[in-house]
């Protein structure tokens, strides 16, 4: 049947706006129905329209008044609902406390992790268009010499501008004290290319590169050393190598190229004055060019620049010439760790929500009678739903606030556990986005927790079921079982992740670095060029330092090396083993070159495998040039034969191998050894040597005693350290211990929540079946069989969850790959143990209430009914 003519649309729309609760369009329907009766067959519909309008105009005030009254009545109820909610929650302290605890813990951890993620990763770097900044040659092995800078910068047309830096140390001296800080010599355009302005004063200008007078300092140094004095700009400061004028202070947000830089001094404009400084750099990509363009040009330009200096780049060199964005270079490694942590934290929150959901579901079940009674007494469905929502909001709100407080309180602990070289660690704070995150994740929890129980609503009876207590509602029990499965699945993923990280950290800790980490302290003096201009002066200085250290009680051996394992820096050279012809393509073998002095191998505990170590006699002027090589070198240069006694041709002369030492992990514990050649200090003096001091455990001198011994030779020489070798090695672990620790915590939380879930669902199932169990036992059923049936029911959902979680973990473990060391992402042990462990925990969690149920006296149970 066709609906026929329609009444004026706007009038109808007005009425629809004023619909009463529970009306469902009945009023509009009534008017539509009657409207047609008012249409006169001959005179048309204008009378009907008029009637309709009169009805609408007459109805609107009454309806509006009623809607308003209902609404007022509703809001008046909210305060009461909140009071009721508080009462309800207080009456169930177990439920309230466990829910609050779960929410506070997980939301707090998520908020903490997010605060770090936000500070370090999400905020853009404080540079102008940071995405256009790139770092050619991210590999430490490639660098520019002082002479190469201008030809290189001019050759790179794909870069709009290029800036370079070389590391430096500055020693601030006053009459009372001296403080050494790290920093860089930078080209005058350093801050201009970054597009960052200083906090106070000015940046370097072209003229600053002509006279070595200007210095810029970090916000931290300004606060620490100059008491945040706003008049610091223009002040002259005394440094170990002269005076400098502070021209600018950088802002607290500034991200230095290396995390511990606190001073910047201009790189001299005159290439001759730059010394042997190895320069690194970065540039701003020209508009319209890509990193691929820059890479291609780099592989053309750099070899040409090197060729000027007499070095032919090999194909291997060219392959190693890559370009990274500055963001990747500054944040690279950290990103994977933080993303993993953040993802895991969100999983934990989800798990907590499912857990609370399950508790709420149990609550609804328990309170079914309460709600049914209230519904029968005329409580509207919406109103009851509102009551439940308010309870939930109250729980999550309090949980969220507590979590926020906990996150705030745990800041110090968290930031100190993070690796110190994490960029912008100081910026971790409770900023607005963190607050927004906390609110959003809290509301998200309300949503997750609130939505799940609505699936169980369909089967809720509207009438109290009096004696019908023996059978639980099937749909709600199914839902709870499904929730347990989800909990177990999430728990498996978390536990597998934690397991992989723990195994990785363990294998990292058990790696043999090739030297003995214990009992060694290391210190690095930095004698200046002005005080120690030549090799003789340097040799004399270090000899004196060694003697001074050897005199310390407890010290066994002292040695030195220019690049200590696990510290940055390197020196490479190509070589040709004796008897091997020069390759047709001119490509030679390359080796890392190390300069060692004193009893370095003994002090480090590096085993001499064949031949002998270097001796003092090798340092003497006119001695035969000899070297010691590592095993990898031996195998590469003289495969299958004994390298001792053979000679090798270097670009600076022929050397004879007198010994072979064990391989040492040089760059970090993850990276295996390269070919290495150790030459004596007498053959080539190096300015800044790492001194290693081995001493006897108990009587080892303190670090200040070691520092004093070195300073006693020349107090004006700045010192880096002393540090223990253990600290140096530990520094290369980066974020791994923290990630492992937190993931282990998450795994434990997952395990606990999973167990609680299984326990809860079994307890409820048992409670619902009390009568049945009682009857069965009264009829002579073996209690063991009754219990095992109950356990089997609970275990079914647990095992389904474990299986699903296992599959998810198989897929997701690949995400951890970049963080793992010595462990396959699909490590068989972890993937067997984690699900087995969880299944066992589930078994125990379900067995406890199941067995307890069978101990109940059947007669009593039946009488209760």
């Amino acid at each position: 049947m066709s609906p026929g003519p329609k009444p004026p649309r706007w009038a109808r729309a007005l009425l629809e706006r004023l619909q009463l609760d529970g009306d469902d369009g009945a009023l509009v329907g009534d008017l539509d129905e009657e409207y047609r009766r008012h249409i006169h067959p001959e005179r048309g519909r204008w009378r009907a329209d008029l009637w309709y309008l009169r009805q609408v105009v007459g109805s609107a005030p009454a309806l509006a008044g009623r809607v308003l009254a209902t609404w007022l009545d509703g809001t008046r109820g909210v305060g009461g609902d909140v009071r009721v909610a508080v009462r309800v929650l207080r009456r169930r302290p177990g439920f309230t406390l466990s829910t609050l605890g779960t929410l506070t813990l997980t939301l707090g951890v998520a908020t903490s992790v997010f605060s770090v993620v936000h500070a370090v990763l999400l905020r853009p770097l404080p540079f102008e268009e940071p995405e256009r900044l790139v770092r050619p040659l991210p590999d430490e092995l490639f660098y520019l010499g002082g002479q190469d800078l201008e030809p290189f910068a001019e050759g790179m047309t794909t870069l709009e501008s290029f800036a370079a830096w070389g590391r430096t140390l500055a020693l601030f001296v006053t009459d009372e004290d001296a403080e050494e800080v790290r920093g860089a010599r930078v080209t005058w355009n350093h801050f201009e290319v970054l597009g960052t302005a200083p906090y106070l004063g000015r940046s370097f200008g072209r003229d600053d590169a002509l006279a070595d007078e200007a210095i810029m300092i970090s916000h931290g140094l300004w606060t620490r050393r100059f008491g945040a004095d706003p008049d610091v700009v223009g002040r002259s400061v005394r440094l170990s190598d002269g005076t400098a004028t502070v021209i600018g202070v950088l802002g607290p947000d500034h991200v230095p190229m290396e995390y511990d830089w606190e001073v910047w001094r201009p790189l001299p404009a005159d290439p001759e004055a730059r010394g042997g400084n190895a320069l690194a750099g970065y540039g701003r990509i020209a508009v319209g060019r890509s990193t691929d363009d820059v890479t291609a040009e780099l592989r053309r330009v750099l070899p040409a620049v090197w060729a000027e200096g007499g070095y032919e780049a090999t194909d291997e060199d060219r392959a190693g010439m890559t370009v990274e964005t500055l963001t990747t270079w500054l944040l690279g490694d950290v990103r994977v760790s933080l993303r993993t942590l953040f993802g895991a934290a969100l999983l934990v929150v989800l798990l907590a929500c499912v857990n609370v959901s399950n508790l709420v579901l149990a609550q609804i079940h328990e309170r079914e009678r309460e709600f049914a009674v209230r519904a029968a007494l005329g409580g509207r469905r919406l109103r009851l739903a509102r009551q439940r929502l308010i309870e939930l909001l109250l729980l999550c709100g309090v949980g969220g606030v507590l979590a926020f407080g906990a996150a705030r309180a745990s800041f110090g602990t968290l930031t100190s556990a993070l690796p110190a070289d994490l960029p912008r660690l100081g910026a971790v704070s409770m900023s607005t986005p963190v607050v927004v995150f906390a609110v959003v994740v809290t509301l998200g929890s309300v949503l997750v927790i609130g939505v799940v129980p609505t699936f169980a609503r369909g089967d809720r009876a509207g009438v109290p079921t009096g004696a019908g207590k023996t059978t639980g509602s099937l749909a709600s029990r199914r839902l709870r079982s499904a929730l347990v499965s989800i909990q177990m699945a999430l728990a498996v993923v978390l536990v597998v992740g934690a397991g992989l990280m723990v195994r990785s950290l363990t294998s990292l800790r058990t790696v043999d670095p090739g030297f003995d980490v214990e009992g060694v302290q290391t210190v690095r003096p930095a004698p200046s060029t002005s005080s120690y201009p030549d090799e003789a002066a340097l040799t004399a200085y270090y000899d004196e330092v060694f003697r001074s250290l050897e005199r310390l009680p407890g010290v066994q051996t002292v040695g030195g090396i220019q690049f200590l394992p696990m510290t940055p820096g390197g020196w490479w050279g190509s070589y040709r083993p004796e008897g091997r012809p020069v390759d047709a393509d001119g490509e030679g073998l390359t080796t890392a070159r190390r300069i060692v002095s004193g009893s370095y191998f003994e002090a480090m505990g590096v085993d001499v495998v064949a031949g002998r170590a270097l001796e003092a006699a090798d340092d003497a002027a006119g001695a035969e040039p000899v070297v010691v090589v590592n095993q990898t070198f031996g195998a590469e240069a003289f495969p299958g034969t004994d390298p001792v006694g053979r000679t090798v041709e270097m670009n600076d002369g022929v050397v004879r191998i007198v010994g072979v030492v064990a391989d040492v992990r040089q760059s970090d514990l993850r990276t295996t050894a390269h070919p290495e050649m150790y030459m004596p200090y007498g053959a080539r003096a190096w300015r800044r040597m790492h001194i290693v001091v081995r001493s006897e455990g108990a009587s080892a001198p303190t670090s200040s005693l070691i520092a004093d011994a070195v300073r006693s030779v020349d107090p004006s020489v700045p010192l880096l350290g002393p540090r223990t070798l253990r600290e140096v090695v530990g520094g290369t672990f980066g974020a791994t211990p923290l990630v492992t620790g937190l993931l282990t915590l998450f795994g434990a939380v997952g395990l606990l929540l999973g167990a609680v879930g299984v326990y809860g669902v079994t307890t409820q199932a048992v409670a619902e079946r009390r009568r049945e169990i009682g009857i069965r036992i009264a009829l002579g059923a073996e209690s063991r069989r009754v219990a095992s049936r109950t356990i089997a029911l609970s275990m079914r959902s647990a095992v389904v969850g474990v299986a699903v979680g296992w599959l998810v973990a198989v897929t997701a473990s690949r995400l951890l790959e970049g963080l793992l060391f010595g462990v396959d992402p699909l490590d068989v042990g972890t993937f067997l143990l984690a699900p087995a462990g969880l299944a066992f925990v589930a078994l125990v969690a379900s067995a406890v209430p199941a067995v307890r149920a069978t101990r109940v006296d059947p007669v009593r149970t039946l009488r209760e009914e």
Partner: protein
Amino acid sequence: MGRKGFLGAFEELVLLAVIRAKGAGYGMTIRREIEERAGREVAIGAVYATLDRMEDKGWVVSRLGDPDPDRRGRARRYFEIRPAGVQALESARRSRDGLWDGVDLDSAVEGGL
């Protein structure tokens, strides 16, 4: 009997119309009943607002019928009286009867009509 125990004049008309419809009354029939008996045009909104209020007080109860294609898919909302509604009518009638007792309209105004 709740905070609004007294029965208003319009409420009384609406309640009586609900009773007369014997459970088959919905918005429009109730409205028409009052219109015909009271002899004045009554806005449907006023009827609904009153019914809705009385439902809150527990005097009437409503249920939605099946959606009707004649009404463009809108269901009818049928109203029925509840015991509390009957009581309210009774007490209203009682108090009115009490007041009517002994009243002679002919001599109410001095000098007669």
